[in-house]
């Protein structure tokens, strides 16, 4: 345990060090800094997604949490004329509310059925937000949303803090006692019951934590881009991204989702999107197919040649 804590501290120091290094290195290059900040943001979503996935189920509907966080926070700021950091927490809380509904209805589902249900659930949320014109302005979208970050570098530092928090929670979901509980639940539920772990409870906590962080990320995202329409946040791509990052980086490693996000998102944005403006997102599809077929435990595990353990 002591060793793991030391590793986590090393990880945090590494993240801070590298991100400050990038900030210094790319001084004046707002575009690069902004891409890295977005990579941090989506890495936090990936960490959040993986915290839920570690309990043994795969969600294809995290766009619902992300979008509800974004919409909740933007609409709260709009209707109540609030412009402080509190509205970020509102976003997270609304996503958490959605997670409570998920938990109530999907608690019994496992495997493919759960994945399909989340896939459909995100679609349901999208249609409701899209058509509830009087509350959400529907498909015409919101513009002039309150800006919370005074500049790119402030946004960069906020996402850095966010990714560190997400990293620490994700680390806890792998290495602490809670992590062991999650592992038992995903590998053998009956055995988990037998040794006194309460699987529904463990699963619920992981879903709630995951939804809250995802909603928070959505809220931060929307106060950076300052405009919002349903198809921007409630699309398959947002649901797919955390899954791709986690699978690519390695689902059972503490740094995996961050490394996946960092590699894929920056390659996508900096190298591919200028040359292939409309098809560059296909790289996410290729990344899923290739990782799942050839290195099911992700880059980190593949590099470290960790013997296969703990299949989801």
């Amino acid at each position, binding site marked *: 345990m002591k060793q793991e804590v030391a590793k986590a501290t090393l990880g945090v120091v590494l993240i801070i060090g590298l991100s400050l290094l990038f900030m210094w290195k790319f001084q004046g290059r707002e575009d690069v800094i902004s891409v890295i900040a977005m990579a941090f943001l989506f890495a936090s979503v990936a960490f959040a997604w993986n915290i839920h996935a570690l309990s043994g189920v795969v969600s294809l509907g995290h766009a619902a949490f992300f979008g509800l966080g974004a919409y909740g926070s933007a609409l709260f700021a709009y209707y109540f004329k609030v412009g402080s950091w509190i509205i970020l927490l509102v976003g997270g809380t609304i996503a958490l509310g959605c997670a409570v509904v998920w938990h109530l*209805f999907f608690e019994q589902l496992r*495997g*493919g059925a759960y994945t*399909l*249900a989340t896939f459909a659930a995100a*679609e349901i949320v999208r249609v409701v937000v899209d058509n509830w014109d009087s509350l959400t302005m529907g498909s015409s979208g919101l513009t002039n949303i309150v800006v919370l970050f005074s500049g790119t570098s402030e946004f960069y530092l906020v996402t850095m803090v966010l990714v560190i928090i997400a990293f620490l929670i994700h680390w806890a979901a792998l290495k602490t006692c809670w992590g062991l509980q999650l592992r038992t639940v995903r590998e053998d539920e009956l055995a988990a019951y037998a040794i006194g772990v309460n699987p529904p409870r463990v699963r619920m906590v992981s879903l709630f934590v995951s939804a809250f962080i995802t909603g928070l990320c959505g809220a931060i995202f929307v106060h950076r881009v300052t405009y919002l329409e349903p198809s921007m946040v409630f699309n398959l791509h947002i649901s*797919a991204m955390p899954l791709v990052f986690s*699978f690519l980086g390695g689902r059972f490693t503490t740094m995996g989702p961050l490394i996946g996000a960092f590699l894929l998102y920056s390659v996508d944005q900096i190298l591919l999107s200028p040359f292939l403006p409309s*098809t560059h997102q296909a790289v996410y599809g290729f990344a899923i197919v290739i990782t799942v*077929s050839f290195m099911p435990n992700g880059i980190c595990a593949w590099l470290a040649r960790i013997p296969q353990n703990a299949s989801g």
Partner: protein
Amino acid sequence: MEQFVQLFIQSFSLGSFYTLLALGFALVFSVTHILNLAHGELIILAGYVAYVLEQKLSMGLWETLPIAIAISVVSLMVVVSFVLHQRRLSELHSLIITFGIALILQNCYLGTFSANYRIIFHKSRYFSLLGGHVFISSVQLYLITLSLGAIGGLYILFRKTFIGKALRATIQDRFAAQMAGIPIPRMQLLGMVLGGIAIGIAGPLYARVSYLHPAAGIEPTIEAIILTLFAGMGRIRILLAGGWLLGVAETTTAYFLGSQWREFVSAMVLVVILIFREARGRENSV
């Protein structure tokens, strides 16, 4: 009264078409146990092929159908055999991989056909029924005849031929079928070919009743999943009944609430079916 007959005709034609949409998914799922999330994208592919052939090269529906079918059969075989050759194959794995394939296909469509909404413009002729108050359009007639034709053909193949019996045996119990000397890989190939034919017929029709755009595939995929889960494996008549029910549900919602709620209904039905299936499964196992 006439309104309801009109609604009934609409639900009947759409419902039959939904069954046709689901047929390819259901066949692949029952023969190979793969949940193909790229199913809708393959239908959209056939739709785009038909769009190009009919709008740009001004070919008729009957000339495009064989080409669309050939392309669908080949692409479905490529997708399914790629997934089948995975080392660790579970339902969840097949979902994730086909989801990746769906993303790749969507972005390829975006690059090739742009994000514009496209539809095969079809000048409908209307035929009046019941003394001139109720109409049926030629598109609806196409939907009904082609869908019911394909479903009926498959039903006859399943029930009346020897190879259909072998296919049914494969669906019901793969290992027992193997014991009886049925070559499973060949049956899986047959399932893919039949599924590809269904997709190839569905695509050109889809391009007539609904707009094609790169992300359009999600809707037929959800409908196919709903009907397949509702009917279970290899039961064509229940699949058809489910298609009609879904048609009624979606048409009445579109009529009373507006067509933008149609997707809501289908997603809701999917969630409800998943939850009920789970509950029923638990009752049976206890």
